[in-house]
Every structure is written in C-alpha cells, then in structure tokens.
C-alpha cells in the first residue's frame, strides 16, 4: 500500500496551533486556541453548536486567514498560504455538509484530488507527452486501488449524487485520503448516518488510522463515536478550550456535561 514517507523526526508535531483567534465582525468565533497533534494520534474536537470547531478546521485548511495566532503544519507556518498549498503540506479534510463534485464520476473525484501532486501541466496534457501518459496511468491505478480497498470499485463510474448518503460520506473520506495526507480532518463524518452505519464508520476510521498511519483529528456530535475512537478529546465553547483529556475524563467533566453533553432523559 501507499505508505507515507515520514520526513520529520518521530515526535515533532504534525500540527501545531498557537494562540489562534478568529473574529467575524464583532463575533469572536475562536479565541486563543492552542493544540499540538503528534504523528499517529487520533484526537477529537467537540463542543456545542457554534463553538467554533468548523472554524478551526477552516483555519487549518487555509480557507480562513486567522486574525491572530499561528498554525504550523509539520513545522511549516501556513499563514498566507492558499488552501491548495496547505493541502500540499499534507492536510486533507472532509466537510460538515458533503461537498463532492456531484456531476463527476467517483473515480474522477478521486483523481482530481491528486491535483496537488500531478507532476505535469497544461502542455503535457494537450501534447499527451510520455510524462503525461505515465503519470495519468499511475494516478488512475492508484485511484482504482483506493476504491478497491474501500470496496467502492463498483461505483467508480457512478456520479456521487446518485449514491446513498452513507456511501457519499465514504467517498468523501476516500477522496481526502487520495491526497496522501499526513493529517486528516474529519468534520462530523457520522452526521446523517443511522446507527448501523455509524458502527461501520467507527470501524472504517479506526482501520484507516491504523493502515494509513496518519494523524486524524475529528469533530463529531455522536458521542459513541468519539468515546470509542479518540485517544484524547478537546472540548471548546465560545472558541475557547474548556476541557481536554481522555474520553473517560471528558465524560465526567462537569463543565462539559453542562455545556455539551446534557441530560439524556427525554
């Protein structure tokens, strides 16, 4: 399988965020947020609605420029980089609301995700040079391999909008993996899945985490998922960290219970 070359020393963090603050007009969505993710970790990010979780992901993936603070991916500061450059550093993500390219086949969705490491340009494409043919063959092979691993090969030529919701979620994750990231950000991957699919998702994420040897950071409101998967969970509210610890610690943290978990009697 496609193994990630580990270019940095084992312990230097994959992601390092210091003093991150993001304001929208008068609203501070994220304030003084810090985190360090080490290679191979699987970390959770939870918090009430509107706490700023997605905003943190958006900042990491370069979609927003932070008002303050610094983000480093594998030691490289990402300030001022456009999202595709950040992706090239090894950050891939999925979206809270699925954002697949709906009129392109599943296979093409995966292929386009290789854009950052294409290895050829416009002139190669139209002149169909040797480089082009070799790279294109390789991209296609890798894409099909990935689909096969995830048992999606039967859907290679389908367009995503015709797929069931659960599969769309899966395709989105596979697309993110196609970028061969070092860090995978999952924004509510279980949203809209039923209990059975959620179980399957848990297995899938764990399997990815092990097989691909990558760091995963995920947002999720399904507590089962978080409890089962995460080694460490960070809880934020109003853009500030209110708790951090193992799932067990979080589950019993009083502040987390009042702000987030609530009382499950109906």
């Amino acid at each position: 399988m496609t193994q990630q070359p580990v270019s940095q020393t084992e312990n230097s963090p994959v992601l390092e965020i210091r003093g991150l603050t993001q304001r929208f007009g008068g609203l501070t969505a994220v304030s003084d947020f810090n985190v360090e993710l080490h290679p191979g970790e699987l970390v959770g990010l939870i918090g009430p609605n509107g706490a700023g979780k997605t905003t943190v992901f958006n900042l990491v993936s370069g979609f927003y420029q932070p008002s303050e603070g610094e983000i480093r991916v594998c030691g490289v500061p990402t300030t001022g980089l456009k999202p595709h450059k950040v992706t090239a550093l090894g950050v891939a993500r999925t979206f809270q609301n699925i954002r697949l390219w709906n009129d392109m086949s599943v296979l093409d969705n995966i292929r386009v995700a290789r854009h950052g490491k294409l290895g050829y340009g416009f002139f190669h494409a139209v002149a169909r040079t040797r480089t082009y043919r070799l790279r294109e063959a390789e991209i296609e092979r890798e894409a099909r391999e990935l689909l096969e691993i995830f048992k999606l090969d039967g859907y290679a030529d389908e367009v995503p909008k015709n797929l069931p919701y659960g599969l769309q979620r899966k395709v989105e994750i596979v697309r993110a993996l196609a970028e061969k990231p070092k860090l995978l950000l999952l924004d509510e991957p279980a949203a809209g899945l039923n209990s059975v699919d959620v179980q399957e998702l848990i297995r899938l994420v764990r399997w990815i985490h092990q097989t691909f040897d990558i760091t995963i950071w995920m947002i999720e409101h399904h507590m089962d998922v978080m409890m089962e998967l995460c080694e460490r969970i960070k809880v934020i509210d109003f853009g500030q960290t209110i708790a951090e610890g193992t799932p067990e610690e979080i589950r019993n943290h009083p502040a987390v219970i009042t702000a987030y978990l609530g009382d499950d009697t109906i």
Partner: protein
Amino acid sequence: MLLSVENLEVKYGNIQALHGISFHVNEGEIVTLIGANGAGKTTSLYAIARLRPPEAPRVTKGDIRFRGESILDTRPSDVVRKLHLALVPEGRRIFGNLTVQENLQLATYAREKNADLDKDYQRVFDLFPRLAERRNQRSESLSGGEQQMLAVGRALMTGCKILLLDEPSMGLAPVLKYELFRTLKQLNEEGMTILLVEQNAKLALELAHRGYVLDTGTIAAEGTSEELLGNPEVKKAYLGG
C-alpha cells in the same frame, strides 16, 4: 385518522422511490419513520407536504388523505396555510440571505392577521436562546447546529398543528438534541401531532408512540414503539446491535 398515506407510489423522473407504502398518523400522536439511508423517508415527507418536482417526487399512484380527504391536488403553500402542516426539511434549507429574525418572520406569512405572534416568538427563543442572541445575523453564517435550530423554530412559527421533522437532530450537540426531543414531547403534550424521521432510531422510538420501518420504498415493519424496540430484526438492522 388525521393523516393517512395509502398505497403511495412516487417517482423521481423514471426512478421509483416508493413502492406502495401505507401509514397513518392519528391526532395527537408522535409517529416516527425509521430506516436505512435511501429508504424513502424524506421522499414520503416531501409527498405529504405536496412539494413539487424537480426536487420533490411525483405521486404516480395511491393517495394521501387529510381527515379523510385527498390532498393530492392541494398546493404546497395551502398545506401550510389551510392544513396547518409544517415540514422541517432535511438539510435545514433556511434562507441564508435573511437574518434570523426575518426567517422567523417570514414563516408567519400565511398566518391570520390577529394571530398571537409574540407568544410563538417567545417559545422559539426560550427553546433556542442562541437564536435570540443571533437575531440580526445573516443566517447563512450560522453554524450548522444553529441553522438546525432556526429550521425548527421557523416551522413552529408557521403556527402549525402538525409538525413533520426530517432528521432534526442532525448536527446538534447532544445537549441540544435532548433538549429538542424534550421540546417535541412537550409540544405533543400541548396538542401537536408529530411525524418524525430520525436516524437515531433508538432515540426516536423512545419519544414516539408508534413507528414504521421503511426499507427501500416499502414498509418493512410497524408497531408501537415498545414492539419495535423489542423486535430483534429491527434491533439488528436499525438500532445497531
């Protein structure tokens, strides 16, 4: 019987999505539809709300009755206006270019002039204090969960007596999810009839009086919540163990 669906078949273009399903909702009940992704839950709700193609399906066979009368020819706006039936659609579908306040205000479009709106606003803001805080924010910049609150709040503002909800807990933090379910229960106790579609089948059945299990466009099982919760097949296929 307040609302009944009889042998309903619907199509999207040439694709048949429902293959003759029947279910009913009695006045004052909470009924839930559960089922795997793509089973046809959303489709059923669209059909009841009389939404039109291209996004909604076309009824090809069967009937939908409200207090015994067919509503197949009712305009979707009249479903709200005359039958007092509101749908919280899947994916929120709030009006992002309007403020929170305007979204709520718009939902009162079809209400009588002298309706007591203040009470309804109060109820919505009590339920979702965050909405009151963000009253004048353009709603498209709300977080996912906040948008879901707005979608539910908006439906309540239509002054409906029957509430159709399509996965209302999607994207909500647990604390809010439970809060929402408690509110639904309370609404029901105040006389609201509720038809709930929910992925979290366990939670839904805990709330509902009765339920139907949908499977690829047909009804696979039905019964009271206790029956369904106790049904081993349902347990295996939909409750995740």
